[in-house]
């Protein structure tokens, strides 16, 4: 079996979550959906080791920022890309220190999802297809 690229999709909006999952699935990723930060953290603690996570900010329970804070503490060398529906969103200062965080914030709707995938590939240092 080929090397499997796992990506965590954290978004509470099911249509959005599904569209991301479908897109990455089509592009030969193994998307793992999570509807809340708590759920995503639980997955990570159950030895899920994704290469990257697409993180929505506004979430029920802990928000995206908090998820990244906690997830980055888990010694999982994963990348985080923030996709938010709030155009005025700015990355909090403390999160800028997180090594795996993509400084570029994608705003929903992500019109060019290929570009999103390219950005993730650049982050993880592999050439995609």
């Amino acid at each position, binding site marked *: 079996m080929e090397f499997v690229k796992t990506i965590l999709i954290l978004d509470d*909006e*099911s*249509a*959005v979550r*599904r*569209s*991301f999952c*479908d*897109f990455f*699935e*089509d592009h*030969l990723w193994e998307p793992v959906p999570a509807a809340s930060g708590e759920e995503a953290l639980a997955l990570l603690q159950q030895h899920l080791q994704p290469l990257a996570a697409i993180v929505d900010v*506004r979430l029920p329970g802990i928000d995206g920022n908090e998820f990244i804070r906690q997830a980055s503490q888990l010694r999982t060398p994963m990348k985080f890309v923030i996709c*938010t*529906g*709030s*155009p*005025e969103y700015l990355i909090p200062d403390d999160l800028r220190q997180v090594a795996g965080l993509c400084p570029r914030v994608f*705003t*929903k*709707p*992500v*019109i060019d*999802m290929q570009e999103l995938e390219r950005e993730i590939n650049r982050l993880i240092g592999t050439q995609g297809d």
Partner: protein
Amino acid sequence: MRGIPMTHAELLDFAKLQGICATIAERSGCDVAIMGQEGKIIASSHSESIGLIHPGAALIMDSQVDRFDVTEELARESAVMHEGCNLPLELEGRRIGCVGVAAPLAESRRYAAIVQTCVTLMLENEFSHRQTQERLNSLIASKQQAETVLRKSEMRLREMSELAHIGYWHWDLASGDVEWSEQVYRIFQLDPKQFDPHIEAIMALSPWEEESQRDKELIRIVSQSRAPGSYEQRFLLPDGDIGYYCSTYQGIYDDQGALLALEGSVQDITEQKRSHRALELSENRFRDFADSAADWFWEMGPDLRFSFLTGRVEEVMGLPPEQILGRTRREIYREMENFNTIEWQRHLHILESHLPFSNFEVRWTRPDGGFRFLSLSGKPFFDTQGGFLGYRGVGGDITARKQQERELVRLRNFLVNIINSMPSILIGVDELGRITQWNKEAQHRTGISFEEALGRPLSEVFPRLTEELDRIHWAIQSRRKQVDSKRTLLEDGELHYEDMTIYPLISNGEEGAVIRLDDITEQVRMQEMMIQSEKMLSVGGLAAGMAHEINNPLAGMMQTANVLKNRLTDTRMPANLHAAQRAGLSLETLGTYLQARKIPRMLEDIQTSGCRLAEIVDNMLSFARKGDGGGSLHELPELIDKTLILATTDYSLKKQYDFKTIEIVREYAKDLPQVPCARANLQQVLLNLFRNGAEAMHSVRGAHHRFIVRTRFDERRSMAIIEIEDNGPGMVEAVRKRVFEPFFTTKPVGVGTGLGLSVSYFIITEIHKGQISVTSEPGKGALFTVSLPINPVSSD
């Protein structure tokens, strides 16, 4: 003395003379006659001849002869004369009569001499007796006269003593009895019948502690000194008043020199005392007046040297009087710093001219370093011939008053400054509406000076308040402040706003009012701007809240559409191939079908529409970003481009112009740094400029419309510059000058608010501390320049 001398012959009375004649005639047997003045026979033994004139006697009396002999012949010829001899009678050398003896001449001579001697002796005797009598009479007369004089003198003395209220007393020391003259009773206003003047009773008339030992004291003094003296004493009058007497005294001693009694006079001096007291009172009163009028008195001699000082001079000046007396004012004040002033020169000139002066004010530095303000007044005085004798005057310490005055002046200046530095028009009026106060702003706004305005009716100098006179009167009458906010008025054809407040003045009974006018046009416009700005921000805020809600479903739609498109049209995707194969479907066939049903175009439409929706939401959000002004850095070109897109969408709503037909020429400088700005606000400004420019260009139909948008960096001022140039109709000078004023608009009513550019002005100058300006000429388009500081400036 009665001194009219009788004729000597008349000394002898007729009877005696007749007796003499008869006696001699009888003894001698010859007729004898005595003649008086002018030879008239006054006595004769031959009585028929009495009264006749004897011519011979007449000759004797006339002192022509000393003897007249009547011869026989002569006797025969005369009826009166008989033969005989006549001889004169003389007394004290004066011929007082004659004697004649009628007898034969020889005999008669002898007889005549005898008769002469005899009568003369008698006469002399008589005369001497008479003289004695007379002297006696005169002595008696003088005695009587002396008695009269004495009586008169006594009376006078009494009257005088009564008038002078002087009485006499005598005090017998052994018995203690006192003898009083009538006048003493009168002095004490006591009835002689009821008062027994014993020493104890007398002492009781002065019932005061300090006078109770007076009698013993008196005895002691007189015993010792034996000299007379006097003393004064108070006494109680029956009516309760206090009287005063002055008593003299002397001792009366016996042969051995022992004091037996005292006696003396007593004089009522109550009146003197009273007048003295009145004088004293008057003097005190005068002194009090003078003391309260001045702090000290001074006098100068004719040499202008101080000769007299009294009062608080040392206290005030800090100089003992000895350092002033004998010196001139010039010498004393020479060291004062202001001695060379014209006031001092004038004062010295006045002194030398012997003119009066009043309230000459000087600043005096005391030896201890403190200072006082003195007020000096003086009056020259002269002798009866008009010779200058010097000055008399007063000095006063007016430091407190002076300081109050200074404080008052300072306060007044301070108030005037406040009133004048107020940006409001302040007009004071009295109850008749006449100007009493007219501050700088009023002068500035009306061009009428304070002096010109003072006292004139308000309606004359400030006509537009004429209709407010009723309100002013009402304010004064009711003592209530009247406020009229946001009054509108046209000034130079422009709408202005002002607040008017009428404050009634009710101090010191002086009625009037102060009218305060504040031009609030700026505030009103600023308020409108703020409202507008807030409105936009609230729209922005609403958009921000909505954006997230819109973007998520939009993402669901668009991203799903994206995946959908991939899955339908991507013929190389393994999953697609795999799924088609399992369904027994040829992807080519599917592609043909999709093309035939225009599915790819539909998917494209979903994509395009979604994109536009996303963009609109994004742009709306720009307005929400207020707080980042000055804080966040922005790339101007990007910001401008976004605004241009917004401007394009704006068109579709307003339909005033078609932005898409406008050519946009971008001339962006490459080295432009990022600019700290409030993005939403700056976008609003740029949008305004684009809209206005587009509208202006649109008014010229058929022309090619073009914007040139430039950015550059002004290094010298450290500012980023945005220039937006259109090729529209441009503006005339009058319009150009006012485009940034609120409510100024050239657009038809209902089209614009007239706030757009003023809000822009506010945003650039107030929020960003930058500048915005326009250059334009009719037919040459307009160029708006926005300058923004690069270095962060604090902003709210």
